[in-house]
């Protein structure tokens, strides 16, 4: 057991845990941030996607000991039910969730894209979202939601 100081959604946390503990377990079990989900545990499905310094990372594959001072961001940091962020709102508007299990990961993967590429092409969205799987098959709605959020964010700036 060691103590790890993590920056999650802009807030500092100190966590006592084993160095091998996946970041996903720390977020869910220690910090009660249950947005990121455990899907495959092998980095194959993307439902545990969070941001590390702005880059999408599958948190089931991240031992807590490697996080260091990097900023961790989860879906909870984007907004809540009353004040959803632009991507969350777009996912609601497109009814992109069926069972919803993959959605937090999808939204974080999309966040990484839109922060770096505010006006992505449809091909860029497809390629960027490729790591994240949805077993209900709402991929087309998810792609539309990312498009909608990109357009909404671009509109807001105009």
């Amino acid at each position, binding site marked *: 057991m060691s103590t790890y100081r993590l920056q999650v959604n802009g807030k500092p946390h100190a966590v006592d845990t084993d160095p091998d503990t996946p970041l996903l377990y720390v977020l869910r079990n220690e910090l009660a941030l249950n947005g990121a989900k455990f899907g495959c545990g092998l980095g194959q499905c993307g439902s545990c996607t969070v941001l590390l*310094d702005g880059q999408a*990372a599958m948190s089931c594959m991240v031992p807590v000991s490697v996080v260091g001072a990097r900023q961790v961001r989860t879906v909870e940091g984007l907004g809540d039910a009353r004040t959803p962020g632009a991507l969350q709102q777009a996912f609601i508007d497109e009814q992109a969730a069926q069972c919803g299990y993959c959605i937090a990961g999808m939204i974080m993967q999309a966040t990484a894209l839109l922060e770096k590429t505010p006006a992505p092409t449809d091909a860029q969205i497809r390629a960027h979202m490729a790591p994240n799987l949805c077993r209900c098959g709402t991929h087309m709605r998810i792609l539309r939601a990312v498009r909608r959020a990109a357009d909404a964010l671009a509109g807001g700036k105009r």
Partner: protein
Amino acid sequence: MDHSRRKRRTRWWLLLAAIVVLTGIAFAIMWRPALAPQSAIPAFDQTRIERGANLAQLGMCASCHTADLSRPFAGGKPMETPFGTVHSTNITSDRDTGIGAWSLAAFTRAMREGVSRDGHLLYPAFPYNHYARMTQADIDDLYAFFLTRPAIAAPARDNAMTFPFGFRPLVGFWNVLYLDDAPWQPDPQQSAEWNRGAYLADAVAHCTACHTPRTKLGGPDLKRQLDGGEAEDWYAPALNRNSPSPLPWSRAQLHTYLRTGMADDHAVAGGPMQDVVMHLAQANEADVAALAAWTHSHLAQAPARTTPAQRDGPLPPPAAEDPDLPRMQLGYALYANSCARCHDVGRAPSSGTALPLQKAIALYDPDPRSLIHIVDDGILPPDGEAGRWMPGFKAILDDGQASALAAYLRKYGAGQPAWPELDDQVRKARTP
């Protein structure tokens, strides 16, 4: 006085003559005439078009000439070279922006000499120094295939070459050094299948373009055929006696690998080789078998050796007396927590087999570039295609962590001496 003036005048005349002659030679090297546009696209026999389609798969034309799957062969894909960024061009039948106005003579000249119809010299990113040795019948068939591709309007994108390579006529000098258009000769000592493979590998599939090292001028280093080169900053392994493969390749494994990108318990194609196998998967089976036969004859020259790849089981923790213990412990922790879950639990092929890492050829390469790219970017099939899937770890591992992982895998996975300047290589591979 008079005498010396005459002497001086003679010298001037000689100098002038030399300049004229040299200019003439330079002109002959650098200048090619335009060929007249053809008024209409000729009609082609279906069998020729189909043979051309197979050659286009074997030559992997789409790999560079298709940037967007919905616009096949319309070009526009950027390719980084040491001399600048070159964009592939439109080779559909479009008259204005493609090659619809190109006669067979113009197409043949481009394939054999690297000259566009209008006379400008093409950059050798287009591997005409290989196609130069194609049979005329094969060039005819490729012509039939491309001139029947639906016309797509897509003008050429501007290249961004570093000075002075934007001046295309300079390519003429490269051609003097590296363009060998002597017809390809079969080796009578070898089987017909081997010779078919040798022809395809050299003149069509241009395997040696990546698997042979290049000179500083970007030409093939012919003294080191198949001695390992590079492609898009990946190491392209030696295919001769210097093959880094820790286990000998069988011919059947090579055939399966070239066809599917996977040889069970031996290798998974990554990086640019993924694109190669996607094309070979669409080519004639007999041609892929011939390529495997030829490649195997070269790989079989590699001496047998004892490597960790011959044993099973997870990789060991670092030895207590390791002089680089903290770094190796970090590498081992990353291996155990991030890599081993897929690579060492013997998952069934249907759920995405990962190689036991002691068998991964990238660990045995003479430099770490391919391993770094695999760790950073994973192995992803192209958009819309099925294939092996490994997530990338660039977002997860910082430079020091990635370097520690590579150092650990090299030592305790492959049992090979440390890669020199590993930290620099990691940083370089990650610099956009």
